[in-house]
């Protein structure tokens, strides 16, 4: 009988977990989820608070693994520097990191684990917007502030007032490429190839189209693919027949590399254009020479002479043996912004930290000055880079 009761209890607990993990799928976040909110008091935080507890969720493995690893290194480096300098208010930071393998459901359960088991006071992550949208509801419901280093989809911070980001958003990024294509490259016939399974890609395509057509250009053809596809030749053949001057491809590096090399096999010579999802050394490995002459918008470039950035690049190289990409820089800034907020907050409690993060103004980060607007988004300029033999060549900066 005892065993039976135990089993029933376990089953009940399982059900409760089930409820909590599925709740983040409600991406609107409008309805409160009691199952998740009750989790916090049931698991009180340890009273001996000798550290600030920071949680991180990232794609350390999986389809977008370089994003997660760069971001993780950036966060780690920032934390080490802050701790070496004595921490904040005499307390050091402690990082707990979970891998979500690039999957939204894993991201949501990892976030819950950070909140209910590890009692973190702030959550950092994710890069991919789809995953950040899965992480935001548990953070919002448990009043734990979350800072996304580099999710650019507007809906991420719209989930609630505890969700922040230190990067610009897609409406701006899509606009940047449209302006660049029209003003700098003097193009007026562009085709679009978008990833139907990514919020990021769909968002960028939408804002690119809006701006580009407003400027007088035409989208001659639109086609789509799904993340992880191997064969893109059918779509590319279709785009080729429309004879675009360039193809806007707002996807992630692992697909982009394959798509561009298949396009060259089909005899498509038009340049490709993309967004910050291209920023990975894996891109050149997968795409090779076929990427030459293509452009993408990004958060920052290592060619920026800003001394703060240059010092970060040198430190990062010393620590990890390779130059940082923009995602590493944003991870670094996200951690710095969090530390800055802890220094100004009245206490380490969620609402106080939230208040402090929301008040971030003219924070001097390595990716530029960070001011959070009323929608909790950073307002920052973007850079456009050209790819030449695996190197990024700075083209221009476009301000919001």
């Amino acid at each position, binding site marked *: 009988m005892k065993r039976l009761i135990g089993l029933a209890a376990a089953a009940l607990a399982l059900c409760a977990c089930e409820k909590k993990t599925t709740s983040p799928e409600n991406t609107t976040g409008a309805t409160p989820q009691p199952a998740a909110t009750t989790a916090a008091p049931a698991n009180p935080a340890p009273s001996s608070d000798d550290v600030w507890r920071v949680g991180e969720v990232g794609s350390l*493995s999986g389809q977008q693994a370089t994003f997660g690893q760069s971001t993780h290194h950036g966060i780690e480096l920032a934390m080490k520097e802050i701790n070496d300098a004595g921490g904040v208010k005499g307390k050091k930071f402690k990082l707990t990191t979970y891998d979500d393998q690039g999957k939204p459901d894993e991201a949501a359960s990892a976030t819950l684990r950070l909140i209910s088991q590890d009692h973190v006071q702030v959550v950092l992550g994710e890069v991919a917007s789809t995953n950040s949208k899965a992480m935001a509801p548990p953070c919002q419901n448990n009043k734990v502030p979350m800072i996304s280093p580099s999710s650019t989809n507007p809906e991420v911070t719209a989930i609630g007032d505890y969700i922040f980001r230190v990067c610009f958003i897609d409406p701006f990024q899509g606009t940047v490429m449209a302006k660049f294509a029209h003003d700098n490259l003097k193009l007026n016939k562009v085709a679009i190839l978008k990833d139907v399974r990514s919020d990021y890609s769909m968002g960028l395509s939408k804002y690119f189209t809006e701006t580009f057509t407003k400027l007088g250009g035409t989208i001659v053809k639109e086609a789509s693919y799904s993340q992880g596809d191997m064969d893109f030749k059918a*779509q590319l053949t*279709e785009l080729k027949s429309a004879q675009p001057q360039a193809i806007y491809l707002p996807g992630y590096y692992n697909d982009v590399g394959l798509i561009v090399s298949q396009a060259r*096999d089909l005899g498509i010579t038009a340049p490709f254009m993309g967004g910050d999802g291209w920023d990975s050394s894996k891109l050149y490995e997968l795409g090779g020479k076929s990427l030459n002459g293509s452009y993408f918008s990004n958060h920052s470039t290592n060619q920026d002479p800003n001394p703060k950035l240059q010092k970060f690049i040198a430190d990062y190289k010393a620590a990890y043996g390779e130059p940082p990409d923009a995602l590493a820089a944003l991870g670094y800034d996200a951690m710095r912004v969090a530390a800055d907020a802890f220094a100004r907050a009245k206490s380490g409690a969620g609402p106080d930290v939230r208040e402090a993060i929301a008040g971030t103004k003219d924070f001097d980060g390595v990716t530029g000055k960070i001011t959070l607007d009323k929608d909790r988004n950073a307002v920052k300029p973007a850079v456009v880079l050209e790819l030449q033999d695996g190197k990024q060549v700075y083209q221009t900066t476009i301000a919001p």
Partner: protein
Amino acid sequence: MSEFFQHLVNGLSLGTIYALIALGYTMVYGVLKLINFAHADVFMIGAYTGLFSARAIGGEGEGSYARAGAVLVISMLVSAGLGMLIERLAYRPLRARPRLTALITAIGVSFFLENGAQLLWSPDPRRFPRLFESHTFFLGNTAISSMQIIAFLVAVAMMAGLQYLVFRTRFGLAMRAVSFEPSTAALMGVPVDRTISITFAVGSALAAGAAILFGLQYPRVEPFMGLMLGLKAFVAAVLGGIGNVPGSMVGGLVLGLAEEFVAGYGLSSYRDAVAFAILIAILILRPEGIFGRSVAEKV
């Protein structure tokens, strides 16, 4: 019009890959009445073997036909060995058990290979090296690369070789005998275990061949790459009539062409749906497949 021919070329080159993988399903099913779900993961291991052996042979940049041939042979041998090993360890001990047991084991082996590969080589996608220089020819506006032509010819040669093996050799005779009635074949002096083992070896070698040809045209290798391709090749095998060698080839080509045309003419998000719609349609309309013969089962 050039668009149509381009889709035709693309569809044929994708279809031959499906056909080569489908042959592995068909051979094993023909002999054992077992759907070897681990077959697609043998394909994946074949791709990784190709990747590593190309690196070991050297010269990341410049390729040659000799190097490509060597990589192909190494990869086929390794996969053949793996296929025999899987049969010996996972299927043979369960051969006397109900067929469902073997099916479940097959799925288990598939998971084991996928996750083992992820553990060993990390889930990061890698680039499959260009084994030889490819030139693109244009017929009007239709692009055909020498890589595609060579891949197509190699695939056709492999299929012809298999056809010869099954219908013109003593081993083929043994294989057909085992497929027909294993216990009687054994009484007639056919070494059943060895025949089944070699069937697995040949099927797995074909999967590795497909993996190399695939890697040349779609140069990305990752632990879960066999998942979707395997399902589609399975559909191709069912479409042509599972257990029927020429049927699988036709099934593969039909599926490849159907996918490219559907994806090319505006419905690119439905390309995976096409394969499974075909599967459902064939199961309802002609469960024995295009080339299959319906066999009345004794009850």
